[in-house]
């Protein structure tokens, strides 16, 4: 009876602690670029804009400014490299573009795309890389009276229930899991009576959903 009351009190206190614990987060840095292409390989691009629509508008303006007609945005990019290749053989028409993690890859693929479009003398006309995007990070912590083994078992269970099951792994005092581009850690700092929750990934909102799913069910 006493044990039952104590267990219920502990559950209640844990819930309160979970509710009160501060879930803090850092949004990812964000920048967008765009590439616009018009007739006969006229082009313009933009880099490091705060949002995609502004990046698109700037690329279209640049394309028009370079005497491009019928300019259209062919791609937007964020945190990677872009390259644009055109056929220098004097004929109007063949061009290719690519976005890839590295400049060299982007250039190679852009040239190949240009060649596949019929270009006989394709050369890179423009390339640009955006600074890599910093990932969003969000953390939370709760108090616990669980021992290390029980804590790790529960950590594994909550990651499973939160869908962070890809490459689930227990390592030292931590359980790691993943869902798509999101990495999560539940760390049992038993000596301090603390459980830390961490989720890192491209979007803050989604990271926070994963965090809440894990910490709220602990």
């Amino acid at each position, binding site marked *: 009876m006493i044990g039952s009351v104590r267990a219920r009190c502990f559950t209640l206190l844990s819930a309160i602690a979970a509710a009160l614990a501060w879930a803090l987060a850092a949004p990812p840095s964000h920048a967008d670029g765009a590439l616009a292409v018009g007739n006969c390989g006229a082009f313009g691009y933009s880099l490091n804009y705060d949002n995609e629509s502004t990046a698109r508008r700037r690329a279209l303006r640049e394309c028009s400014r370079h005497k491009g007609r019928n300019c259209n945005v062919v791609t937007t990019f964020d945190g990677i490299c872009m390259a644009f290749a055109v056929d220098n053989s004097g004929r109007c028409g063949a061009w290719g573009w690519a976005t890839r993690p590295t400049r060299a890859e982007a250039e190679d693929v852009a040239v190949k795309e240009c060649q596949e479009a019929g270009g006989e003398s394709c050369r890179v006309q423009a390339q640009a890389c955006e600074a890599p995007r910093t990932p969003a990070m969000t953390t939370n912590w709760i108090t616990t009276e669980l021992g290390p083994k029980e804590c790790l078992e529960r950590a594994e269970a909550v990651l499973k229930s939160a869908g962070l099951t890809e490459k689930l792994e227990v390592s030292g005092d931590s359980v*790691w899991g993943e869902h798509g581009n999101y990495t999560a850690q539940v760390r049992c700092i038993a000596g301090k009576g603390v459980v830390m929750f961490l989720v890192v990934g491209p979007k803050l909102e989604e990271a926070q959903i994963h965090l809440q799913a894990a910490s709220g069910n602990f």
Partner: protein
Amino acid sequence: MIFPNSVARAVLAAAAGFLCGSHTLAGPSVATSWSSTGLTQQECVQRAERVLRDAEMAQDFEVVGQSVFGGTGGYTLLVRCITEKELVYFAVGGPSHDQAQRYLTTMSGKF
């Protein structure tokens, strides 16, 4: 009960447990560690800010409640001060596991 002064507590904290963990998955690579601290919340946050600033690890940083976040070259760095539990938690996330681990070692070592 008389508590030791903050300097003495910080020294004790430095001598206390310090554990690291890291992981490389298809998501961002993440490295974390924690250490004990006897600092007050204000001292801890100030030190975290100074570590990120002095080490030039963060081109931009932000203090949010208990935490100091920094960002540089695709990496997010975090120092979270949970002084009520005498705990400081460090985390680094980014594309390369090795670089994340290096940032973590530098950051926690300078704290």
